[in-house]
């Protein structure tokens, strides 16, 4: 009862216009035995109600840490700085017992692996009704009925029977649907989907993504969709932010990003998606090299050692995130793709055979290929 009243009071005068979520220069670092690991190194974006932003990047780029940082679900050795505004209120420095009023009711998360993210020894119904009864103070019967309705709305057949079952009795896709139901139970305004389909079969992935999109539209939720797969965000997001080494390297409305790629990393990601229209045995384009050390990152642009466009300037000066002429489309590059400066830089590298950090650059089968600097 206290919880519900507190929540109602706290959110009574929430503004209805303006961004739901404002992330400003958020940094998250972890204190480890090897040093301070800078997982998120200055990320900013805004999200309005009903909109979806996709956060894309390879493993280790900080995208999962980012979503947990915003929610505040970090381990004790994490150091967070920057500002996070939810409905205009600062939550970046809020302690856990304040955040508990937000978790579940205002913002929720769908986790990557439903097998490990669901309690294996607790019945599915209980895992859903627990949220309902804890936050909304409803009776057991009401909660059970609501849970059943929730399961039906996420597309689980025989919902009533499922309530009494355990997670291991369901298939992977079903489990993820259950996870979504749990997250949506108390009607949050903001949903984080952290690689929601990575652990699932390809055939099931589209279904889950469709489900998320449908629920989002119905509930007018804001959604942050975190993934390593550009294909996942292609038709389902309003904006996309590409992350590399803890920073956003390109941010744009979805259509604009795909139409006019600017950052070499984004270009490489796009190219690495295999296409049905390519002839068979086409070489898969991987991005050579590995992400940088997050404890003591190199100076200059973090992507330079793997970038075919890299020039000397890239190794010493870190480019700022600017919109370089296209409003709403920001990127962090001295020699962006598709610009004069960029094309010249690439030509220079191809002629010389190497890019700034010494990585070999050449053309193979109509594609520019680099290798890792050994």
């Amino acid at each position, binding site marked *: 009862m206290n919880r519900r009243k507190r929540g109602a009071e706290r959110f009574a005068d929430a503004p209805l216009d303006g961004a739901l979520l404002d992330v400003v220069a958020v940094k998250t670092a972890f204190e480890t035995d090897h040093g301070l690991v800078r997982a998120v190194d200055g990320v900013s974006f805004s999200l309005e109600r009903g909109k979806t932003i996709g956060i894309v990047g390879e493993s280790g780029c900080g995208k999962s840490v980012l979503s947990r940082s915003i929610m505040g*679900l970090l381990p004790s050795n994490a150091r967070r700085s920057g500002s996070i505004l939810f409905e205009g209120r600062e939550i970046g420095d809020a302690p856990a017992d304040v955040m*508990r009023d937000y978790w579940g009711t205002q913002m929720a998360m769908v986790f990557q692996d439903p097998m490990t*993210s669901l309690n294996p020894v607790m019945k599915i119904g209980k895992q859903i009704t627990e949220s309902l009864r804890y936050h909304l103070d409803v009776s057991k019967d009401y909660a059970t009925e609501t849970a059943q309705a929730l399961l039906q709305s996420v597309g689980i057949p025989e919902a009533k029977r499922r309530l009494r079952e355990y997670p291991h009795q369901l298939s992977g896709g079903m489990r993820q649907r259950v996870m979504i139901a749990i997250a949506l139970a108390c009607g949050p305004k903001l949903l984080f989907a952290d690689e929601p389909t990575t652990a699932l079969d390809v055939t099931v992935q589209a279904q889950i993504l469709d489900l998320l999109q449908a629920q989002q539209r119905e509930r007018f939720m804001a959604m942050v969709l975190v993934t390593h797969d550009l294909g996942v965000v292609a038709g389902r997001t309003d904006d996309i932010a590409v992350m590399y080494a803890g920073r956003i390297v390109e941010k744009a409305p979805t259509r604009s990003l795909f139409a006019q790629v600017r950052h070499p990393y984004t270009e490489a990601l796009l190219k690495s998606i295999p296409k049905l229209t390519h002839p068979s045995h086409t070489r898969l384009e991987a991005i050579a090299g590995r992400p940088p050390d997050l404890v003591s990152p190199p100076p200059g642009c973090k992507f330079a050692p793997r970038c075919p466009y890299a020039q000397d300037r890239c190794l010493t000066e870190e480019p700022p995130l600017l919109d370089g002429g296209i409003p709403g489309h920001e990127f962090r590059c001295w020699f962006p793709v598709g610009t004069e400066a960029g094309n010249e830089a690439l030509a220079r590298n191809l002629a010389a055979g190497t890019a700034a950090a010494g990585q070999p650059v050449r053309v193979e089968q109509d594609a520019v290929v680099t290798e890792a600097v050994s």
Partner: protein
Amino acid sequence: MRTIVRRLIQLVVVIVVVTFFTSVLTRLLPGDPTTLIAQFATPDEREELRAELGLNRNVVAQYGSWATDFFTGDMGTYYAGTGVRGEDVYDRAKIALPKSLLLIFYAQVVTLLIAVPLGVITAYRAGKRVDRWANTVAFGLVAIPAFVLAALLKLYLGLEWDLLPTIGWIDLTDDPVEHFRHAAMPVIVLAVGQIAVYARLLRSDMVATLQEDFILMAKSKGISNRRILWRHALRPSSLTLLTVAGLNIGTLLSGALVIEIIFDVGGIGSLIYDAINRRQYFALQSLIALVAIAYVVVNFIVDLLYTVLDPRIRSARIA
């Protein structure tokens, strides 16, 4: 169902083997056993005794007759020095066994009541001061042998400060208050030895569980840490603890026997002590067989109970 039957058969086989070995123990006695239990008997009386006890026959036949006697309630008798038969072992064992079992039961309950919260708290505060202190104390406690603790408690709690009675046993039905007062010290001694072990065990499992994804998921639902600890983390972490608790009932039985002597409880331990002192080796044999069977049966029951606990094991068995 099939597995239960199979296990029951295993149980019977083990009981047979175990009792076979106990029944031939007296053969290990140097010389003629009858000289030991009936020192003042005449050679004729001794010969009668030998025939009665089946000592003249081969091992298997001796076991056969011993087993048929034992499992129909005839556990042998005590013998006076002249070879005359005394009281039935069964009569004394009947009174003694419940006391021993009750002692073990109380000890296990007390241990769990203290060890579980301790384990949960030290897991929650792992690495912090509470945890490190608890670890050091636990380490020290484990090194104290039960009989030393018993002596210490007897001296200080019992005699010097006169808080609890030090010897004897009052039945529950006679006087509940005194029953628990008399049982208190032996139970405390038995429990203390286990608390440290159980708490550390639970702690290490819980620390591992608390790192699992579903705990983070529960946290993201906004429920309190206390609820997460007790309703979400405890159950999946308790499997090892319960495994050990089950296994330990057997060793607790051995420990209880020693404690009984110290506090003069009058359980099976006291009977065994008495039998050894009076050189009643045949009574001893029956008592040992009784203890061995109890040990085996208890372990069997505990084994069965595991399947109830973890639904994953239950499904795996059915599947």
